């Protein structure tokens, strides 16, 4: 876990996010009916979900590690990754809702993609409730690690598989082409891919800071 104390990738994250702020807002985008300039939301909406996904994957990784070794630090890493992931989850929902207001007409129109995102949000809220319901630390760490591993594949099915099978207005679902297929010209790619990487690194960075704070608290409270 040495890499979380190094600086180079944090600098990279800041540079990438700053670059997408300029390229994403200033570069030329294809002129499409209905979408118009809202297509720029792609640079800020999709990276939130990618950021969420990367911290959730790290969280599952540390849950597996916790079950194998029983070290308390791994549990702290897993829970802080989930906390950060939920923050990015909310940002993803909000950016999506803003975009939906301008293109679909409503903040929340009961689209399958929106509904299953809300259900998966409940899934991770249940994780936090489960943690609060157990007092004994090791038992809490073990059971929540198990639930975390159990919840992750279901979240993936909910958000990334199910909406593709029904009629959804969301790009990339239910026969609607994703932006990548037709509209994402090379000019957009310059802004889009750095945004994905930059915001993922940003999410990981926030998670590591939260983890380090938790670790200090844990060490302070432990008896030695």
């Amino acid at each position: 876990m040495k890499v979380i104390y190094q600086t180079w990738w944090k600098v990279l994250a800041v540079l990438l996010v700053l670059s997408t702020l300029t390229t994403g807002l200033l570069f030329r985008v294809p002129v499409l009916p209905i979408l118009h300039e809202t297509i720029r939301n792609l640079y800020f909406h999709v990276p939130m979900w990618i950021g969420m996904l990367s911290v959730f994957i790290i969280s599952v990784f540390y849950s597996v590690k916790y079950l194998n070794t029983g070290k308390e630090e791994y549990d702290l890493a897993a829970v802080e990754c989930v906390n950060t992931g939920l923050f990015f989850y909310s940002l993803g929902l909000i950016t999506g809702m803003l975009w939906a207001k301008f293109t679909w007409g409503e903040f929340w129109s009961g689209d399958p993609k929106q509904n299953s995102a809300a259900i998966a949000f409940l899934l991770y809220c249940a994780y936090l409730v489960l943690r609060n319901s157990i007092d004994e630390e090791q038992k809490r760490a073990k059971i929540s690690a198990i639930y975390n591993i159990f919840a992750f594949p279901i979240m993936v099915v909910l958000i990334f598989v199910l909406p593709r099978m029904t009629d959804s207005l969301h790009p990339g679902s239910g026969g609607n082409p994703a932006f990548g297929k037709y509209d994402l010209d090379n000019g957009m790619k310059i802004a889009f891919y750095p945004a994905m990487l930059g915001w993922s690194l940003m999410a990981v960075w926030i998670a590591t800071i939260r983890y380090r704070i938790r670790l200090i608290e844990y060490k302070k409270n432990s008896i030695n």
Partner: protein
Amino acid sequence: MELLHQTWNLFKKEVLLEWRSKYAFNGVLLYVVSTVFICYISFSLTPGFTGSKGYPIVWNVLFWIIILFASVNAIAKSFMQESKSRLLYYYSIASPQAIILSKTIYNILLMSLLSILALLVYLLFFTNTIGDPLFYFLSVLLGSISFSTVFTMISAIASKAGNNGTLMAILSFPVIIPVILILIRLSKSAMDGLERSLSYGNIGVLCLINVIVITTSLLLFPYLWRD
């Protein structure tokens, strides 16, 4: 081979215990019959409802909600009714995978029987509008299998975390919502008598969810039981 042998013996034990008391089966059966009857009486307060346009939709959704709550009640018991000392005894003679597998298979059997009986009772009270009965029956079976696999694992987690019903509901509902959405879609198309090949995608996703849930429970249960 050892695993299969242990699973089979534990499964026989589950069936034998249930056969002696018939508590879970009769209890949930009575629960289902009374719920159906309450729904029947409540809906018959509105005359002409059976002929109305929304009737098939309500028919289908109501059936799945009854089955959902019946299965939560039936399966929540599977780990909670075991005493701590008896669980310890099982773990000393069998592998944890055998225990969760036997519980899952037993719950599948129990839920299939219960939901078939529930369907029969339901058909007795509410006028039948099913277009493709065989396919509807298949979707009911698939539904009881999916409910059993999901709820068995969740009840194992909930029973470790203090045995309360609230936790069972909080943990299981987000997991079960996608399953019940697919089931309602599948059974609705069976009801309307649509072309069967249109539903193969839904059946595939349902089987996929079951495979994911069973593999994760087999992988995770060995960590869960140890205190």
